[in-house]
């Protein structure tokens, strides 16, 4: 496909790339202009007098600031670590032992998770957390969300683990290395891109999560940003666009940074670069 690269094909590719980039970029323009406009509307317009006044007001809302820079980091970070570690262990274990109907089993668990993380599940989830003494704790939110994200994470991870050739491990096994050692020294380095994908996927999901925190958390000191967002609404239930846009901007920065960091350090791609 790259052997005969005519100029026409090259121009075609560039046009296609620009069109796709435009499609993804245009809806985001508002997020860049609105926060800096002290009289913002839904229109994308360069503010005549750019100012940081919206951000000043947002930072005056200590509840929302704490939600974003403390609670969200704990919730998303904690869930990310748990899911990434457990999904790696599990998908490795599943990949290296004989389990009939493995794919179907994982898929059924994904189905369960789609039910359990939906609105209909909120009463059982609350009562469960209540009986475990997890209501109004960040731990509770992290544990419940981990249970919800694990099946999909294992499913994504499975492809990475399956794509590692097992000859290294078999050689190590012959040399008498323990399974744990094999996992840590051989498997983990090889699936690292997969761990990163699952970690980012979990982090962004937990970062934006809304339903479970609302149901489980009570104290303002524990609320995440998705709930704090509503503190920038009026009594009538309509958003104050100036503050909403500034908070949205701040809310987006961490996930963007995480992605850029991971992409730069490890490369953000599915199932590694192992050529077979």
């Amino acid at each position: 496909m790259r052997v005969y690269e005519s100029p026409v094909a090259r121009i075609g590719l560039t046009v296609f790339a620009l069109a796709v980039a435009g499609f993804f970029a245009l809806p985001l323009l508002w997020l860049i202009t609105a926060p800096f406009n002290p009289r913002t509307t839904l229109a994308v317009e360069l503010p005549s007098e750019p100012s940081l006044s919206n951000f000043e007001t947002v930072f005056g809302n200590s509840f929302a600031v704490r939600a974003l820079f403390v609670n969200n980091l704990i919730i998303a970070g904690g869930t990310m670590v748990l899911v990434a570690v457990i999904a790696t262990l599990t998908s490795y274990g599943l990949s290296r032992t004989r389990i009939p109907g493995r794919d179907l089993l994982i898929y059924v668990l994904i189905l369960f998770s789609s039910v359990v993380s939906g609105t209909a599940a909120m009463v059982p989830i609350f009562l469960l957390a209540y009986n475990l003494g997890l209501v109004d704790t960040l731990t509770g939110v992290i544990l419940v969300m981990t249970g919800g994200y694990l099946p999909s994470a294992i499913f994504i991870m499975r492809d990475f683990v399956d794509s590692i050739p097992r000859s290294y491990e078999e050689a190590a096994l012959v040399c008498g290395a323990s399974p744990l050692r094999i996992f840590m020294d051989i498997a983990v380095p090889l699936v690292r891109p997969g761990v990163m994908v699952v970690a980012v996927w979990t982090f962004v999901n937990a970062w934006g999560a809304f339903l479970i925190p609302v149901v489980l958390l009570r104290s303002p000191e524990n609320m995440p940003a998705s709930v704090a967002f509503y503190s920038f609404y009026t009594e009538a239930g309509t958003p104050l666009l100036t503050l909403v846009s500034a908070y949205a901007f701040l809310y987006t920065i961490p996930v963007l940074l995480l992605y850029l960091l991971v992409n730069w350090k490890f490369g953000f791609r599915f199932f590694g670069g192992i050529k077979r």
Partner: protein
Amino acid sequence: MFKVKPLLTSLFVVAMVLGTLGGSVMAQEEITLTMTCRCVAGGVNNNLVVWLTTYVIPTFEEMMAEQGKNVTVELVEFGGSDEQLKEQYALDLGVGGGYDVFAFDGFWIPEFVEAGLLQPLNQIAGEAVDEWEGWEHIPPGIQAIMSYRGEVYGIPAGTDVREIFYRRDLFEQAGIEMPWQPTSWDELLDTARQLKDAGIEIPLQINAGTSMGEATTMQGYFMVLLGAGDHMYDFDEGKWIVSSPAILDALNFYYTVYVEEGLGDARMQLVEDGRNRSFEAFRDGRIAMLVEGDWFWRSVLVREMGVEDRNALVDWAMMPAREPGAGYRGQDFVTISGGTGWVLNPNTEHPQEAWELLAYMSSRDSQRAWELIQPRINFRDDVPVAGDPVMTAMAEALLPLTTVRPMLPEYAQISYEAQLMTERVVSGEMTPEEAMAAYAEAVTELVGEENVIVIPVE
């Protein structure tokens, strides 16, 4: 349950104090009361936080200390939406937890009571409730906001009224005489037509559709339904009116405004951010008349949806009945009130102190302090609106005319059906007759044939 943390903290504090006193007797029990509302310092309902934390809580704690009680009040600020708060209340009360005193929307009371989640104030805190001086200063109509089947579940925090807001500049442009006060729907519609002829884009916007939720039922449907002479519920018979000439008149009014003559913009009523669009359009001078509640004046028009000089540019008028005397209870003008209040938790460990806090917040002095922070229509007749003559005028003109929603557990779902009925008309999907038939069918399914009334349309 959620008191575990404060309890531990207080145990810890008590232990420390005991320690420093070298084991000397500490007879005084420390009591911690928790309260919550949809309010955040620097965010939504900021004024409420200011009032509670700078006035109510410190002075209440001081008063308790004078009585020899060691009471600490902890305000738990909630920054989410009303719906989320409601779900949290239901979940918490269901497992015997929750805050001691909490803000509560009056129309949630019936469904919570039916579920066994709330109890009348005097059952929780006893005689002290009945002996409270405040009751005689709260008019019965306003006490009704927090009552259900003759029992009082909370003390109101305030009430509201609904009216037509109009832009003087646009009226001037269309040559309409001011002050303006229509006395019938025909006059109202004529004004709208006159504005339209003068090139005003959206002469009259009145809420419809499900996406606006209760705003449609209260500021929209009820305002025309009451004007046509009916309520949603027949309070004497104890039944829901599901089909009647008045409902049809109300729907025909919507039909005229949105479908037939295009005096209002139906799109705004049908999209998710429509309410915000309508506020924006009013601010930008595209809407001339908007039917809204008094918070539109005191809260929306002064924030980013505000206009440069509110008092010079915006005025208000009462919503007329279809024709003089044809309104609900034979009225010439109509309005409806909702309201929020504060309730006590039946599970509270300190019912007496919780009640004392609630009564203290609702005292004349506390409410006067509140009015200085946030002028609004007070629930006490001995506390005037402070420093806003327009609000005072609205309260004086409309409170005597007002009515409330039916306080019944099935109200929320029936209200939704009413919103849907208006949505079907303004979208042009159904005729008024068809929409009313669909409403009658849905409500009948909800409450049963024996609980509805059909008044034939001649």
